[in-house]
C-alpha cells in the first residue's frame, strides 16, 4: 500500500480502516441510538517519513474528522492508527501526552485558531512549556528563533494576534506547530482562508520547512491545485471513504475514479482558451449528507459513468491499478481527459438524477 513514496524512509503513520461514527439519538427520557453519521467509514493509508500526503475532498467527505482522529483529538470508533510504530488508537490521555509532542496541527482559520487574548510569544511557547522543554530563557530564545524561521520579526514577540494580518497569523500557527520539533504536522486547510498571493507565501514556507527540518505532512485541502503543488501522494475522499489513492503523477495524469475526474475538471483554469475549450464534467445534485449515504457505491447517484444494476448494488472494492495506485470503482476511467463515450451522463444531460440526500 505504501510503495510509491518519495519520502526518505520508514512508515511514520499507518492508518488502517479508520472509522468515526457519530451517534444519532432519539427518545423522550432515555436517548436511544437510532443511527449514526458515518463521518469516516473505513479509510486506510500510509505516510512515509519526509513525505507529504495530500487529502482532498469536498464538504462532508470526512477529511477534517479523519485528521482529528489521527491526532487523537477525537476517539476513533474503529480501525487503527499507528504512529511511529506505536498503536495509538486506544491510548489513554496520559499515555498520549509524550506522543503529542511528535504530531502537531495547523488549522484553517487564522483568525479563530489563535487565542486573541494571549500574546504571540505565549502562543508559540505554550507547547514547549507544557512539555517542559527548557528554562524560561531558553524557551524565549527558541520562540524568537521560530518567529524568524517563519518569516516574522522576532521583536514582535509581545504583540497580540489582532495586530497581524491573516497570512502572518497563519505563520504564527506554523511557528506554534514547529516549536516542539514534531515529526508529523497535520495541516487542515491552512491556506483556504488566505488571499492567493499570501497563499503562495505560506505554501513556499511549508515546503522550505519540510526540506530544512525533515517534516512529514498530512495536507488537507479542497483545492486540487494546492494539493498538487505540495503533495507526493494524494488521497481523494468522498462521504467518509477513500475513492482514490495515488502518487501525484499518477493522480493528475491518469485519474481512475470518476469523482477525481469531476473534481479536476471542475477546478477553473486560469487560461481563457483552455478553460473554455476543455471538456467539463458537471456533476448533478449536491454533495450528499453523511447521515443518509447512498447504497453500494457512495458516488453512484452523481456519477457520469453510473451503470444501473451494478453500481447501486455492489460496493466497489479498493483495487490496485499498479504501483500502488488504488481506486474504488467498477468502471474506472480509461482515458484522461474523459471522452464522450466514457461519460454515460454528460454535462448537458437531461436525465433526472437518482435522489441524493439534500
Amino acid at each position, binding site marked *: 500500500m505504501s510503495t510509491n513514496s518519495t519520502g526518505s524512509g520508514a512508515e511514520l503513520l499507518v492508518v488502517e480502516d479508520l472509522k468515526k461514527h457519530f451517534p444519532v439519538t*432519539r*427518545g*423522550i*427520557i432515555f436517548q436511544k441510538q437510532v443511527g449514526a453519521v458515518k463521518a469516516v467509514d473505513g479509510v486506510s493509508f500510509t505516510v512515509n517519513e519526509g513525505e507529504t500526503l495530500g487529502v482532498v475532498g469536498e464538504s462532508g467527505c470526512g477529511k477534517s474528522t479523519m485528521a482529528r482522529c489521527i491526532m487523537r483529538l477525537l476517539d476513533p470508533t474503529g480501525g487503527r492508527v499507528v504512529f511511529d510504530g506505536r498503536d495509538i488508537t486506544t491510548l489513554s490521555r496520559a499515555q498520549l501526552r509524550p506522543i503529542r509532542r511528535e504530531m502537531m496541527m495547523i488549522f484553517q482559520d487564522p483568525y479563530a485558531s489563535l487565542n486573541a487574548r494571549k500574546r504571540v510569544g505565549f502562543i508559540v511557547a505554550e507547547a514547549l512549556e507544557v512539555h517542559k522543554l527548557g528554562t524560561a530563557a531558553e524557551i524565549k530564545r527558541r520562540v524568537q528563533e521560530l518567529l524568524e524561521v517563519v518569516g516574522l520579526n522576532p521583536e514582535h514577540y509581545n504583540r497580540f494576534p489582532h495586530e497581524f494580518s491573516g497570512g502572518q497569523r497563519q505563520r504564527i500557527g506554523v511557528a506554534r506547530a514547529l516549536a516542539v520539533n514534531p515529526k508529523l504536522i497535520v495541516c487542515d486547510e491552512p491556506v483556504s482562508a488566505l488571499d492567493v498571493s499570501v497563499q503562495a507565501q505560506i505554501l513556499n514556507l511549508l515546503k522550505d520547512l519540510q526540506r530544512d527540518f525533515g517534516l512529514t505532512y498530512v495536507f488537507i485541502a479542497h483545492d486540487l491545485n494546492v494539493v498538487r503543488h505540495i503533495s507526493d501522494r494524494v488521497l481523494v475522499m468522498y462521504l467518509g471513504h477513500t475513492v482514490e489513492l495515488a502518487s501525484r503523477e499518477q493522480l493528475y495524469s491518469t485519474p481512475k475514479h470518476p469523482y477525481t475526474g469531476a473534481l479536476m475538471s471542475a477546478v477553473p483554469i486560469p487560461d481563457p482558451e483552455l478553460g473554455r475549450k476543455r471538456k467539463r464534467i458537471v456533476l448533478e445534485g449536491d454533495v450528499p449528507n453523511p447521515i443518509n449515504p447512498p447504497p453500494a457505491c457512495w458516488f453512484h447517484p452523481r456519477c457520469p459513468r453510473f451503470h444501473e444494476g451494478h453500481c447501486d448494488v455492489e460496493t466497489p472494492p479498493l483495487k490496485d491499478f499498479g504501483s500502488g495506485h488504488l481506486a474504488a470503482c467498477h468502471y474506472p476511467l480509461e482515458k484522461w481527459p474523459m471522452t464522450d463515450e466514457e461519460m454515460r451522463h454528460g454535462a448537458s444531460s437531461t436525465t433526472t438524477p437518482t435522489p441524493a440526500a439534500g
Partner: protein
Amino acid sequence: MINYIIRRLLWAVVLFIAVTVVTYIIFFIIPADPARAVAGKNPTPEMILRARHYLGIDKPVYIQYLRFLKRLVINQDLGRSFANRESVNSAVAKAAPVTASLVFGGAIAWMLVALPIGILSALRPRSLLDRASMTFVLVGVSAHPIWIGLIFSYFFGYKWHITPISGYCDAINPSVGAECGGPVQWAYHMILPWMTFAVLFAALYVRMIRANVLEALNEDYVRTARAKGAPEGRVVRVHVLRNALLPVVTMLGMDIGLALGGAVFTETIYNLPGLGRTAITALNALDLPTVQGIVVFSTLAIIIFNLVVDLLYAWIDPRIRLA
C-alpha cells in the same frame, strides 16, 4: 415537536417538585418557631406543644411535605394558614388578580414604551434620540423601584394630585367595605403602579431591542432585501423586525412569569394587596402554608409561562418548527 413538548412537560413536573421541596427545607432551617406565635401571649411549654400539634408541625418534615403534596395534587388544596386558619386557596385567589393586573398592565405599558424607543434608537444610532434613550436606560436600570415609586407617588400623587397616592380598587364586584370599585377607578389607581413597574423593564427591553435590531440590520438578508429594491420602511418592518423581535418573545414570557411571582416592591409602595405583599406578611408571621401556597402558585405560573413561550417560539421560528 411532540417529543419536545412531552420532555418539557416532564421537566416541568421535576422542577415543580424541586422548588417546593426547597421551600420546605428552607422554612425548616429558619430558627424561629411558628407554634410560639400561634400559642398566644406567654405560652407555657404544653401550650406550645399543643399549638404544634394543632398546626401539624410536630410530625417529621418529610411527612409534612408528603401530606402537603397529596393534598395539593388530589384536592387542589393549598392548606390552611398558620396565622389565621383561612384557606390558603382563598388568600391566593384574592391576591392573584391584584398582581395580575399589575403585571399584565405593566407589561403592556413597558412594551409600548420600549418597542418604539428601542427600534428608533437602533435605526438612528448615535443620534440625540439614541443618546437620550440610553440615558433613560441607565437611569431605569440603576434606580430602585422603591425609589422610583416614592418619587412618582410624591409628585404625581401628593403634589400634583394627578393620580391617587396608593391603594387598590377591584375592577369588578368591589368587595364589602372597599372604598372604591369599577374599571375606571381600578385603572386610575393602577396608573402609578404600572408606571413604576414598567420603568425598570422598559429600560432593560429598550436596550435589548436596540441591540437586536442593530444586529439584524447588519445581516446579509437585509442587504439582499435592499438589493431587491425594497424601500427602507419595508425592509425594517418585514425583514428586520420579524427576526429581531423573536428573542423578545422568549424574554417577555420569562419576565412576566417572574413578575407574577410577586412584584414585591411596587406592591409595597402602593399598598396593593397582591401576592408579593401577602408573601412578605406571611413570612414575617412564619406562616408556612401561605408562603408555600404562594410559592406553588408562582412556580406554576413561571413554568407554564415558560412552556407557552418556548412552544410559541418553536412555532414562530421555522428553523425550529421544521428542523
